[in-house]
């Protein structure tokens, strides 16, 4: 396994943790001395940095911050809030979050140094995933340079690595395929939903991905969870290895990447190795706020160690990850990992008929079926006030009519058994929207429905 950064990747886990701890302590003092957002909060909370002797003390003494805290700071201190940590004239750009939470967009400023740091986060993962100088990588995410951290930091990573990044996020699907056939890619960056769409578009155009893109060696996925079966199916269709990365605007690029072994191997999910020399990451039980054990899921709490501007200390991301300990992956790197395919959002969770359901669980069932092109779900109240869950499925055009009814019944049965909720599965009346970046398949219409029912009966 070739190391991109031998001085870091050949450290023992103990030596890496020792380096990380020293960086964290330095970073905390630096944040207190230079960043009014943290100084104010820590003074109010009575935080004494000298008392932070170990990770437990760090966890107990330094309070968490949330998206709501950052938005409040921005609102009270426009335009940037008080946590940039630099003078306005030192900022050379801004990212803002994509807003899928629905409550507002956090701002992240960056300095010149930060722009190189963003690229550095990506260059590790891209190298592990086989990208080399001069390789063509097609980036299908919308926008390559600008306010979205994902595509912009990827661009910077490709520049640092010396790869030939072709950014076609703004093109139509057919245009994307046209350019990909013109400039044969070795690598592709795409979200899972869109990878499936591209495969379907190849079929519509009369060729298979394997035939059209024989040079393709890797596909890097992000932003959606997926199952092992789906990943293996995609590898078979595309003829190359799938990889995954986890990143965020808060991190400023990538935080964790699969290694050479990929997103799935030996019929098991792979490991997304966390760049622990660049960030201090905790995976905590959402209720108890204690670290979870190996194989357990928890909330990712992020402290950036290398960002100059807009640094974060104990930011509760609301992202749900599965923690895998150091040494769990046979690649031998010293980092701990997140399970590949398993990242989800806590705020995606919908309570359906008293059951906590994450859309990812339904994706894993419905989208696994090759007969399904896309689906949407909704939870609503009927006129008589019954809570109802509906899954609307768009089938592939060549699926025979009678087979569609059978498949609807099959899916309903599997969903009932595995998710524990009775759902009506019906065929969509019209083609459903496709997603090129963040996916939102579910709507919760119960509030409006409850109001309508109340109005009707009063």
């Amino acid at each position, binding site marked *: 396994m070739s190391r991109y*950064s*031998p*001085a*870091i990747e050949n450290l023992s886990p103990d030596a890496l943790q020792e*380096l990380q701890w*020293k*960086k964290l302590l*330095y*970073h905390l003092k*630096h944040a207190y001395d230079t960043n009014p957002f943290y100084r104010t909060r820590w003074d109010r909370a009575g935080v004494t940095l000298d008392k932070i002797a170990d990770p437990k003390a760090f966890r107990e003494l330094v309070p968490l911050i949330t998206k709501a805290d950052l938005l409040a700071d921005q609102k009270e201190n426009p335009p940037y809030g008080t946590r940039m940590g*630099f*003078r306005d*004239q*030192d900022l050379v750009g801004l990212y803002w979050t994509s807003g899928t939470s629905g409550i507002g967009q956090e701002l992240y400023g960056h*300095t*010149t*140094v*930060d*722009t*190189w*740091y963003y690229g*550095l986060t990506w260059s590790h993962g891209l190298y592990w995933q086989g990208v080399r100088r001069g390789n063509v990588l097609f980036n299908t995410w919308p926008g390559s340079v600008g306010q979205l951290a994902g595509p912009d930091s990827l661009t910077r990573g490709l520049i640092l690595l010396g790869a030939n990044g072709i950014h076609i996020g703004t093109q139509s699907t057919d245009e994307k395929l046209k350019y990909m056939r013109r400039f044969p890619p070795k690598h592709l960056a795409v979200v899972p939903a869109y990878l499936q769409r591209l495969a379907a578009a190849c079929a519509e155009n009369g060729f298979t991905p394997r035939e059209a893109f024989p040079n393709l060696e890797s596909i890097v996925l992000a932003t959606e969870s997926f199952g092992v079966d789906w990943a293996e199916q995609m590898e078979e269709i595309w003829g190359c290895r799938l990889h995954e990365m986890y990143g965020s605007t808060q991190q400023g690029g990538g935080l964790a990447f699969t290694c050479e072994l990929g997103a799935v191997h030996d019929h098991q999910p792979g490991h997304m190795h966390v760049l622990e*020399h*660049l960030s201090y990451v905790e995976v905590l039980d959402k209720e108890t706020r204690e670290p979870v054990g190996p194989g357990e899921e928890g909330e990712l709490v992020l402290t950036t160690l*290398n960002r100059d501007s807009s640094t974060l200390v104990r930011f509760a991301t609301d992202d749900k990850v599965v923690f895998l300990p150091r040494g769990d992956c046979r690649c031998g790197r010293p980092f701990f990992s997140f399970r590949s395919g398993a990242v989800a959002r806590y705020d995606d969770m919908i309570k359906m008929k008293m059951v906590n359901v994450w859309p990812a669980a339904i994706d894993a069932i419905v989208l696994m079926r090759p007969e399904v092109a896309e689906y949407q779900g909704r939870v609503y109240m009927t006129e008589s006030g019954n809570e109802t869950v509906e899954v609307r499925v768009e089938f592939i055009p060549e699926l025979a009519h009678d087979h569609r009814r059978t498949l609807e019944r099959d899916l309903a049965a599997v969903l009932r058994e595995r998710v524990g909720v009775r759902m009506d599965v019906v065929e969509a009346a019209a083609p459903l929207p496709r997603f090129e970046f963040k996916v939102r398949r579910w709507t919760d219409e119960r509030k409006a429905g409850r109001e309508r029912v109340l109005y009707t009966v009063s």
Partner: protein
Amino acid sequence: MSTQGRDAEFATRLYALVREMIAQTESPVVLDAGVQMLGLAKILLTEAAPDAFEHVRLEREPVA
């Protein structure tokens, strides 16, 4: 000296050289290019001389 040791020494010297150039130049283009080089020099230190983070983080970048 090991390869890693040599990388660390070059990274440290380069960082110091770029800082000195930025501090002494009166040319806007040298300053602009120098600040970009400072960003690269800092990530070189992060990866090649990871223990050298303390003096790096005390920096504020110069304003042209």
